[in-house]
C-alpha cells in the first residue's frame, strides 16, 4: 500500500506513482479474470481435445474425436433440437407479447403502473421457484389447473409434463410467462424516448393508431427490440434451470436441453472432455446466432 503514502510531493514524481497505483486498482479483477475466466476458456478448449474423465488414470489426447462423437450423438442432436425450438418460440413469444403489452400500458396511470408491476414481478423470482410452482400447479393430483379443468367438465385433462409431445410446449409457455415482463420493461423504456411531437405530426397527417404504431413506434424501438431479441436468444440457448426444476429433461429426453446434457456428461458422468466439447459447440452457436441477428439489424438500419 505504498501508493497510499501522502502524495503532496512534487508533481513530477507523481506520474511514476500513478503508474504504480493503477496496477493495484486493477490487480484483484485481473487475477480473478485470469484464474477463473481467461485461463479456463483456454483450458476448456484444450480439454475438449482429450478423453478427460475424472477418476481415470490418464487423459489421452484424442484430437477432434469428442467433436466427431458429438456429430454422431443422437442424444446431443435431440438436445440441440429441443434448445432451438425453445429459444425460437420463447424469443418470438416474449418479444411479440411484450410489445403488445407495453404498447397497451404505455401511458402512466395508477392502473397501468399496477399492471406493469404485476407483469414484471416474475422477474425477481428464480427460474427454479417458477419451475417448481408450475410443476405442481400442473400436477394431476394437487394442481390447480387440472382441478379447475375438472370443475369445467374436462374429465381427461392433458398430461402437461408427463406427455412427450406436450412437455416442451408447456415449458415454453412457462418460459414466456416468466420473461414477458422483462421485455415489456425494456420496450417501455424505449417508448418513453420517442419524442411526443412525432406522434402529433403523424396524427396531423391523419395516421390512425395502427399506422402510428408501425410508422413511429416500431422504428424508434428498433434498438430496444434488437436488445431484447439478443438477450432472449442468448439466455434461451443456455436453457437449464427451468427444465431441471420442471421435468429433469424428461419424459424420455423430450425436454433435455444442451446445457442439461452438458451438466449430465460433466457433473454426473464426469466426462469432462466431452462436456467441454459440448460447451464449445454451444459457444459457437451463440456467437453465430448473435452475429446473424446483429447483421440483419444493421442491414435494416441501412435502408
Amino acid at each position, binding site marked *: 500500500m505504498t*501508493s497510499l503514502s501522502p502524495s503532496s510531493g512534487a508533481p513530477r514524481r507523481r506520474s511514476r*506513482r*500513478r503508474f504504480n*497505483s*493503477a496496477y493495484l*486498482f*486493477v490487480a*484483484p*479483477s*485481473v487475477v*480473478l*479474470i485470469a*484464474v*477463473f475466466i*481467461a485461463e*479456463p*476458456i483456454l483450458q*476448456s478448449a484444450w480439454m475438449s481435445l482429450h478423453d478427460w474423465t475424472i477418476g481415470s488414470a490418464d487423459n489421452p489426447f484424442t484430437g477432434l474425436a469428442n467433436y466427431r462423437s458429438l456429430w454422431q450423438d443422437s442424444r446431443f442432436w435431440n438436445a440441440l433440437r429441443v434448445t432451438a425450438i425453445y429459444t425460437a418460440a420463447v424469443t418470438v413469444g416474449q418479444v411479440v407479447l411484450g410489445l403488445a*403489452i407495453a404498447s*397497451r400500458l404505455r401511458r402512466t396511470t395508477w392502473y397501468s403502473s399496477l399492471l406493469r*408491476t404485476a407483469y*414484471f*414481478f*416474475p422477474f*425477481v423470482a*428464480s*427460474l*427454479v*421457484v417458477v*419451475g417448481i*410452482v408450475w410443476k*405442481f*400447479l400442473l400436477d394431476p*393430483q*394437487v*394442481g*390447480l389447473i*387440472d*382441478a379447475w379443468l375438472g*370443475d369445467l367438465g374436462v374429465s381427461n385433462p392433458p398430461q402437461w409434463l408427463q406427455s412427450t409431445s406436450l412437455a416442451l410446449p408447456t415449458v415454453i409457455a412457462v418460459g414466456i410467462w416468466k420473461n414477458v*415482463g422483462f421485455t415489456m*420493461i*425494456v420496450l417501455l*423504456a424505449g417508448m418513453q424516448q420517442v419524442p411526443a411531437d412525432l406522434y402529433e405530426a403523424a396524427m396531423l*397527417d*391523419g395516421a*390512425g*393508431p395502427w*399506422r402510428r404504431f408501425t410508422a413511429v413506434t416500431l422504428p424508434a424501438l428498433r434498438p430496444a427490440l434488437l*436488445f431484447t431479441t439478443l*438477450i432472449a436468444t442468448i439466455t434461451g440457448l*443456455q436453457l437449464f*434451470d427451468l427444465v431441471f426444476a420442471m421435468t429433469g429433461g424428461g419424459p424420455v429426453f423430450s425436454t433435455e436441453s444442451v*446445457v442439461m446434457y452438458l451438466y449430465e456428461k460433466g*457433473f454426473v458422468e464426469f466426462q469432462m472432455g466431452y*462436456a*467441454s466439447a459440448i460447451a464449445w459447440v*454451444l*459457444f459457437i452457436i451463440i*456467437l453465430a446466432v448473435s452475429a446473424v441477428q446483429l447483421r440483419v439489424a444493421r442491414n435494416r438500419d441501412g435502408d
Partner: protein
Amino acid sequence: MATSELTSPRAAAGRRNGRPPALRSGGPRRLARIAGRLGAGVSWLVVVVGAAAIVLPFLWMLGVGFRTSGDLYADPARLWPDQWTLHGVRAVLDQLPFTRLIVNTFVFAGGTTVLLLLFDSMTAFALARLRFRGRNALFVLILATLMVPFQVTLVPVFLTIYHFGWLNSYQGLIIPRATSALGIFLLRQFFQQLPRELDEAARIDGANDFTVYWRIILPNAKPILATLFIIQFAALWNDFLWPLVISSQTRMQTLPAALTLFSSQSGVDHSALMAGAAISLTPLAIAFLLLQRYFVQGVATTGIK
C-alpha cells in the same frame, strides 16, 4: 391490404382513424369508432386477464404453503386454504436445514455482490481515469470474455476449485464470481461520463489516486452502484447451476439448489416445499416492491436476468 393503401398520405388523410375499408359500409365513422372502442376494451380485458395469470401462481404458492397436505388433496381446486396453518413452515424447517440454507444464500449473494462491486469499480476507475501500460489490452480482454458463455468455463473452474480444496465452501462459491466483465464495462462507461474537473480539483488539493476513487468517483456513482448491487444480488440469490456444481453437501447449498433437489423427491411434502419457495422469494419480492425503480433501471441498462 389496409396498410398498402395507407402508404399514400392522401389516402391516409381521408380516413382519420385509419380503419380498414370493410368497416365503412354503414355509417362508416360511427361504426369505426364503436369498433375502436370495442377493440380497446377487448385488449384491456386481455391485458388484465394476463396480469391475473401472472399473479395467480404466486398466490397459489402462498396458499399451499399455509395449508396442510391433506387439505390440498381434499380440494385442489381451492386457491386459498380453509384454515391457515404454519404446518408448511414448520415442516420445511424440519425436513431441510432451512435456516442454514438462508444464511448460505445471503452470504453467497451478499458477499459476492460486495466484492464484485468493489473490484469492478476499482478496475473501471483505473480504466477510465488512470494511465498505465496495457490499459487498452486489458479492456479488450475484458470485452472478449464478455462474449464467452458461463458454461464454457464451468468445467475447468470446477476442477480448479476441486484442486484448491474449495468445493463446499464459501470461498469456493464467492471468489470465482467476485468480478464480472459486464460490471467493469458498465462502470467504466459511467465513470467516463463524470466531469474530469472533479478529479482535477481534488488533485490540486493534494488528493492521490485512492482518495479520488474513494471520495470523488464512488460518491458520484451512487445511482449506478445501487442499481448494479440490486441486479447482481438478485441474479446471485436466484443462481442455480453454479451453486449446484460447487456445493453438493446439503449444509453448504443455497436455496434454489436445495429446493429443486427437495422438490424432486418422491412423496414430497407440498406445503413444506411451497412454504420454502415462498420464503426464498420474500427478500427479493420486498426489495422489488420498495425499489422497483432500480430494478427497472438495471434491466433497461444491463439486461441481466
